[in-house]
């Protein structure tokens, strides 16, 4: 394992752990952003330049800001309440079990062992990506266009304030 991969992997996983354990929500969002940048650098290490820069453009440039805006609009950054639910050990146990299963499957797989250790970095010409998008993958392209439109309209409609006529029932949960 090269040094670059070790550093990037450590950064990504460390930032992800920080994102899930910190108390202040804005710090969590910023650590999640660092983790996303670390992932983009890992994609660069794999030789997929296009995917790496799209990851930065979409995730860091849009999704991270969305998360941060949501934290601000729901005032979650102000009063750090109890951070874990009562299922702490159950949740951790399940996650550990999932990781254990995956690691066992990866380590014990004969198909993975059969793959060549070193292959040349495959070229990723953007023209080929474009050709495939309108060639082989034209149906997913159209579907994702519909999906993005629907998601955008849906997000606007859901997050819009209701019309002046209907007062909002701001009931506090009696529990």
């Amino acid at each position, binding site marked *: 394992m090269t040094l670059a991969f070790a550093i990037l992997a450590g950064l990504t996983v460390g930032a992800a752990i920080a994102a899930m354990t910190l108390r*202040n929500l*804005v*710090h969590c969002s*910023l650590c999640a*952003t660092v983790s996303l*940048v670390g992932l983009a650098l890992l994609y660069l290490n794999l030789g997929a*330049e*296009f995917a790496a*820069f*799209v990851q*930065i*453009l979409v995730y*860091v*440039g*849009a999704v*991270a*800001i969305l998360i*941060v*805006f949501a934290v*601000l609009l729901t005032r979650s*950054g102000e009063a750090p309440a109890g951070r874990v639910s009562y299922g702490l050990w159950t949740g951790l146990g399940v996650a550990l079990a999932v990781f254990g299963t995956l690691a066992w499957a990866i380590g014990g797989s004969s198909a993975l062992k059969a793959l060549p250790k070193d292959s040349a970095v495959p070229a*990723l*010409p*953007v*023209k080929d990506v474009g050709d495939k998008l309108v060639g082989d993958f034209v149906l997913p392209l159209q579907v994702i266009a519909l999906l993005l439109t629907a998601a955008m309209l849906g997000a606007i409609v859901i997050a819009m304030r209701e019309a002046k006529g209907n007062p909002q029932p701001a009931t506090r949960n009696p529990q």
Partner: protein
Amino acid sequence: MASLDQIFVTLKAWVLGLLPETVQPFAGVMISISAIMAVFPGIFALTTVVERKLLGRFQNRPGPNRVGIPLTKIRLAGFGQFIADGIKSLTKEDVVPRNADKVVHFIAPFVLVVPSFLALSVLPVGRNMAALNFTETGLLFFFAIGAATEISVFMAGWSSRNKYSLLGAMRGIAQMLSYEIPLILSSLTVVMMVGSLSLVTIVEKQTAVQWGVFHNWHVFTPWGFAGFLLFLTAACAEANRTPFDLPEAESELIAGYFTEYSGFKFALFFLGEYLGMFAISGVAITLFLGGWSAPFTFLDWVPSWLWFFGKLVGFILFFIWLRGTLPRLKVDQLMNLAWKFMLPMCLINLVVAGVWHYTADWNDLIRWPLGAALLALPYWIFSRRFESRFQTRTYRYAS
């Protein structure tokens, strides 16, 4: 004069030749980095002085005219002001509010400056002189790095625990996000016509000669001209320059999202903003104005890097001119401009670029007016035809 054109390339190759083999890649990288870090902050320093003097002249006052060489009486018409400003910002006390989030407050300027320097590294400043040449994804790298600077705006605004900073940061992020779409769409026409995302290839395509004397800059085509104007407007908004400087409106929000910064961190924010302006002007030059190529073939003897920096200086002066002349846009006018005017115009620009491509064998005297008409009609519809919807101003005077 090819040797003068390639003088920096040969200089770097000579220095690298003096070093042992193993150190050479690392040393090459360090030389490119030092060149970028020497040149662009130097331009930034001069820009601050030139901006203050030009704004002074626009406002009928002299601007700074006392500091020439410090500690002497030589005035140099005030062009040494940047030395005084630099010393001031380095020695000022660094005030951090007591309630501020210290770690985020400290990191925010660096999160702005580092992507700005990264964005400057992909610009082809001369023939064979791009520090970082991604052959597949150069322009995408630039936009990705530009998107990453928005996080720093939020970090600065939120960590100061100041409602004016937060408001400025929210406005700033909304503005930058909204104007990224016209920015990317207007550069998409260039990518479509050139067929590559690499900035070096885009410049080389524009060095083709047309009519024996012109170099084939993209701005000399109807889609290129409209794309250039759209890109310029979106670039002005991305760089938070007047008329789009609502996030840092001095008369409203004190200094917007960097109100609570003083001393060196404020200088870093200032540097990061101006470097962002240079980077985006550099990309506008690369995409539309032919990068390092001359406009006419008989001017090809001037070195390529001189052309690039000359055009960059022209852009800087143009932005300063805009700042001195135009009033600031309100936030709803800003958003309306981005979403209801520039986005449809960018999409129509894509169509016009397609029309231009498929009529490549027509006479240019027919193609140009056709393209211009195809763009002018939607422009008139979007800007003038809807004017009846806008409220006419009624003035009430005291009687």
